[in-house]
């Protein structure tokens, strides 16, 4: 193989590390997005036997947003295997115990239940906040776009942006805002 072709082959089959910010995102929709990258289905060379999946680092998983009243209603079932070992845990309780589990289970359950699933899940790295170990951070070369935009609080806007924002009317100076 010539040098150029070798480089092309290496670049095509290289494993890429992606970053995804899960703050304010729906974990179930995010799961559909992330599973594509984990399986390698975002590449035209995709094949289940090809081992073309990429790594995905998810940050801020403690800030995920479940729709409606799912925090109160969604239950996760676990059985230890021993008699009387069944337990039903609500989403908010599980999130309190381990803030990465809700998203992890969402990704796991969105995948096909075949033998490759556990190996594919090994490539997903979830962190509850933005503290990622530096050896993983240095691998990242792509950021996956969020599904819904993360809203900014008023105090997160700079003075300049607030002043430049288009106004309908100018309130009189002695007007009191409640």
């Amino acid at each position, binding site marked *: 193989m010539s040098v150029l072709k070798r480089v092309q082959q290496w670049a095509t089959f290289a494993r890429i590390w992606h970053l995804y910010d899960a703050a304010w995102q729906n974990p179930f929709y995010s799961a559909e997005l992330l599973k594509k990258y984990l399986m390698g289905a975002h590449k*035209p060379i995709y094949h289940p036997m090809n081992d073309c999946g990429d790594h995905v680092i998810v940050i801020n998983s403690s800030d995920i947003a479940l729709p409606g009243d799912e925090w109160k209603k969604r239950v996760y079932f676990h059985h230890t295997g021993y008699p009387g070992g069944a337990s039903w845990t609500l989403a908010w309780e599980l999130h309190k115990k381990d803030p990465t589990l809700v998203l992890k289970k969402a990704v796991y359950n969105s995948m096909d239940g075949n033998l490759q699933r556990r190996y594919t899940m090994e490539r997903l790295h979830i962190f509850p906040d933005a503290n990622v170990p530096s050896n993983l951070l240095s691998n990242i070369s792509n950021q996956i776009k969020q599904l819904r935009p993360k809203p900014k609080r008023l105090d997160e806007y700079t003075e300049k942006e607030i002043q430049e924002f288009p106004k309908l009317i100018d309130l009189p100076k002695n007007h009191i805002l409640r």
Partner: protein
Amino acid sequence: MVFTTVINFVRARGPDEIWRKRRIFKLAAHFIGRRRNCYSIAVRNVHRALVYATKGRKLKREDMANLWETRVRAGCEQHNISYESFREGLARCNILLNRRTLADLACWEPYSFKSLTDIAKRRTLDDGLAGINADKYLDRIITRGSLNTEK
């Protein structure tokens, strides 16, 4: 003395039994355990294997079509167009490439695939189909209505 009744108790199973069973054992050579050595077990499993082989031919075609579609979707996503818009745009331009060819082009001819996505984007924009936002880049795709003209 001639014993005429004893002969009736002999059960002759037919002279061709060995060859008949050999046909089954040949197909069961790679099975596990008694399935490859004992006839009554082997014959059941050989029948299952043949049924699976017959049904599998159809499934293989479906699986390949699915794989091609996944690959084309991945290619479309890289070029910011949805698969449905892509297929619709190409069909409206009378470009009749099938899934297999599109997948092969996406893998091996990336520039040609990009030009196909550009054509589909231009056509969806011209026709007013949903899913494509008018982008400044799309102005560079010169078709000047040639995609719409029918001879």
